[in-house]
């Protein structure tokens, strides 16, 4: 259903809200954008799809003046513009919610929402808190968020913060007299379904008077909320799809340039679980936000923990990795009691952890892909106490290839990679030693495209088959159901129930939701 390139806007149609022609952007060693064309019509929701590293974020950043393109033109309502800064873009009515969260943690939600455009809330440099509160409340009301506008942002949950981001970008409405263009770069990757519903309602409302560009790796979402999807591949526009009647598989085919499967479950590949001694056995574990956790994970088993925000599942994971202190309980690995006072101890016990907040906790931005990958397992890259450069290079290259990590080279700083590729590097970190016994995965597929996602799923399977025990905090209930052999449901710091999840007899999401709330 791809339509041919539309270089010339047809004269009869109304002027597009935004048009991009031949945009090019080079980074050292990477051509992030290679002549991209894009049209955003007025009153439409345009989806942008593409693999990790396809250039979506770069393109969008160019639209808000954060990236200066090397070549190409941007037209706003038919008029060629040069966007030099976020302010420039905002003045043209273009605003963006970023892929990585961008709120100031120690300011109030209200200040974040109005940041850089306080308007009447700040007069002559002096704050009027009552006005600020009111203006922010208006934005929050739009998206139905119940948070206190004067709460400090770092006291809010991750999802609430995402709502604050959206409320913030909706301020564009007030700023420009023209219909705004609002860009949402993966806003849903950290939201839960109810919040996503709220967001989509907002997007539909926005369409009445604005244009929206929406990016998500969840293709069903894209097809759900968008009118039209534009697909990027390797920095080039490869076509468009009208969403009416389209299916994810088709979109995926365009994204990767060949036929593939959107089947990201591997239900049938589950390893048979040996029932002798559990690999991980937790009894009565209690900490600040969880109590009396019992948990067994056998070698080769994948156990998912599901629960709403504040259920304490993240902290359980972190306790198992020696980050969160515990007040009671015992942890056994392969029957041997272990104490996990710090991450070193956890690593030594053969435990690995992939944190959800990749940017701050997962990677060391300025360091190379190779160094990020080999930070943990020294034996794999060293000869005696010394780093063996050849060995390290070979090892790293092997894993770059194995996980199809898209990087100019192993010496590229990891911060230059796209989000999905960064995640693959972080995951590889635990695998390279071939000695991992228990893997704790906190939202391991957050921000990954379907290709990468399938690969992570395949990897998890492979690891399970080879005997690694896995605890998974999944990105969605579907993911949990698809991957897990067993699912624990947590609520308010306790395990409320355990649901078996064998092949062929999977529970439905609804079964789980019932237990969660």
């Amino acid at each position, binding site marked *: 259903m791809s339509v041919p390139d539309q270089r010339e806007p047809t004269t009869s149609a109304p002027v597009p809200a935004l048009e991009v022609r031949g945009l090019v952007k080079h980074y050292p060693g990477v051509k992030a954008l290679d002549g991209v064309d894009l049209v955003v019509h007025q009153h439409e929701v345009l989806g942008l799809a593409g693999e990790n590293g396809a250039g979506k974020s770069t393109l969008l950043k160019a639209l808000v003046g954060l990236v200066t393109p090397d070549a190409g033109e941007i037209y706003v309502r038919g008029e060629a513009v040069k966007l030099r800064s976020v302010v420039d873009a905002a003045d043209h009515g273009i605003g963006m919610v970023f892929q990585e969260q961008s709120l100031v943690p*120690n*300011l109030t939600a209200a200040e974040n929402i109005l940041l*850089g455009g306080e308007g009447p809330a700040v007069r002559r*440099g002096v704050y009027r808190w009552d006005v600020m509160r009111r203006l922010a409340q208006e934005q929050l009301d739009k998206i139905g968020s119940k948070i206190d506008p004067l709460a400090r942002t770092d006291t*809010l949950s991750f999802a609430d913060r995402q709502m604050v981001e959206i409320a913030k970008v909706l301020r564009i409405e007030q700023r420009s007299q023209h219909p705004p263009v609002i860009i949402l770069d993966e806003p849903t990757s950290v939201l839960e379904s109810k919040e996503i519903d709220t967001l989509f309602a907002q997007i539909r409302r926005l369409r009445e008077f604005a244009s929206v560009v929406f990016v998500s790796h969840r293709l069903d979402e894209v097809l759900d909320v968008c009118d039209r999807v534009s697909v990027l591949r390797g920095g080039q526009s490869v076509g468009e799809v009208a969403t009416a009647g389209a299916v994810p598989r088709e979109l995926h085919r365009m994204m990767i340039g060949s036929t593939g499967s959107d089947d990201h479950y591997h239900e049938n590949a589950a390893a048979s679980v040996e029932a002798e001694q559990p690999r991980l056995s937790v009894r009565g574990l209690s900490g600040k936000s969880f109590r009396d956790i019992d948990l067994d994970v056998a070698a080769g088993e994948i156990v998912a923990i599901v629960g*709403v925000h504040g259920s304490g599942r993240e902290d359980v994971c972190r306790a198992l990795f020696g980050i969160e202190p515990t007040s009671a309980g015992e942890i056994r690995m392969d029957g041997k009691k272990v104490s996990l006072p710090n991450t070193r101890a956890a690593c030594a016990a053969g435990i690995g952890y992939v944190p959800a907040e990749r940017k701050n906790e997962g990677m060391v931005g300025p360091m190379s892909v190779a160094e990020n990958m080999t930070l943990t397992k020294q034996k794999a890259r060293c000869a005696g106490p010394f780093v063996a450069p050849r060995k390290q290079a070979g090892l790293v290259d092997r894993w770059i290839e194995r996980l199809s990590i898209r990087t100019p080279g192993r010496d590229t700083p990891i911060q230059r990679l796209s989000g999905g590729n960064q995640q693959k590097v972080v995951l590889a970190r635990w695998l390279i030693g071939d000695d991992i016994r228990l893997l704790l995965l906190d939202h391991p597929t957050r921000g990954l495209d379907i290709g990468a996602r399938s690969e992570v799923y395949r990897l998890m399977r492979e690891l399970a088959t080879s005997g690694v025990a896995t605890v998974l905090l999944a990105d969605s209930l579907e993911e949990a159901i698809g991957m897990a052999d067993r699912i624990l449901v947590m609520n308010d710091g306790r395990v409320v129930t355990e649901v078996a999840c064998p092949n062929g007899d999977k529970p439905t999401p609804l079964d789980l939701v019932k237990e*969660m709330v």
Partner: protein
Amino acid sequence: MTVTTGVAASRRIIRRGAAFRDAGPPVALVVIFAVFAALSPQFRSIDNVQNIVDAAAVLAVVTCGITFVLMMGSIDLSSAGVMGASALTVSLLVANNRNDNDFGLVGILAAIVLGCAFGCLSGLALVLLKVPSFMATLGVSAIGLGVATLLFAGVQPNISDTMLKSWAIERFLGLSYLTWIAAACILVGWLVQRYTRLGRYAFAIGGAEEVLTLSGVKVKPYKVAVFTLAGAFYGLAGVMVTSQLGAGLVQAGNGYDFSAITAAVVGGTLLTGGRGGVLHSAVGVVLVMVLTNGLVQVGVSPYWQGGVEGLIVVAAVAAAVIPQRRRNQVVK
């Protein structure tokens, strides 16, 4: 799928933590005060309490200035030089024994403006030359001392301006005018911090500078403005020292750089930025002054005084951070 109670509950926990962590320094202050009061009757005399508060005046003003810089996550070591330059400037502009100037208040303002200029210089070096503030302000401090030495020219300027001299001598409600000036500075500082864009943005820059840029805020002018504001406080502090000593000394700011940082940190302002504030710092200043005074009052040997003070400061900070200790906390 979100259960709001869960969110609210966890938020409450964090809020309580925040209140608890703010309580650390004041509690430490009360404890230390109580210990000295128990050990020494002179310490708890009204006279001595007045004396402590008076002695805190200059440090309080310097700390007020540095707090804004620390809130941004930067550091400022320029106070020693700026105060020296300001001290000589003011002592040569008000009635003095070196020349016939008698500009009074205008001279004082000129010294404060000079402080602003030096602060501005630090800020510009930071944002234009991209020199880390540690080094930029160290350089500016050296420049300030050089300027002060030039102005000194071998002969000590003594001031005879009655108004400036009266600041250190005259009292209102038992406290010297200098102390009231310091109190006014704290009040102004607090208002700036809470109610002005400059103050809130300084706070925000310490929290997440890159986010401000993404939100279209030009942070550079604010950074320069914060350093300039800090410079104004140092300039005033130089004037205050001159009033106290009755003379313009090149060394007027000796040691204030590190003492002010110590006081701010003891009060709960983070060196990494984004937390604390003028009131926190004021508590820190009083704590440090109580310590210095108390150790003399209880008669700790002069040989050991510095050491004991260092030990107590470390202990106080350690005690204050206990409630907020987390395993994966970043402490630089």
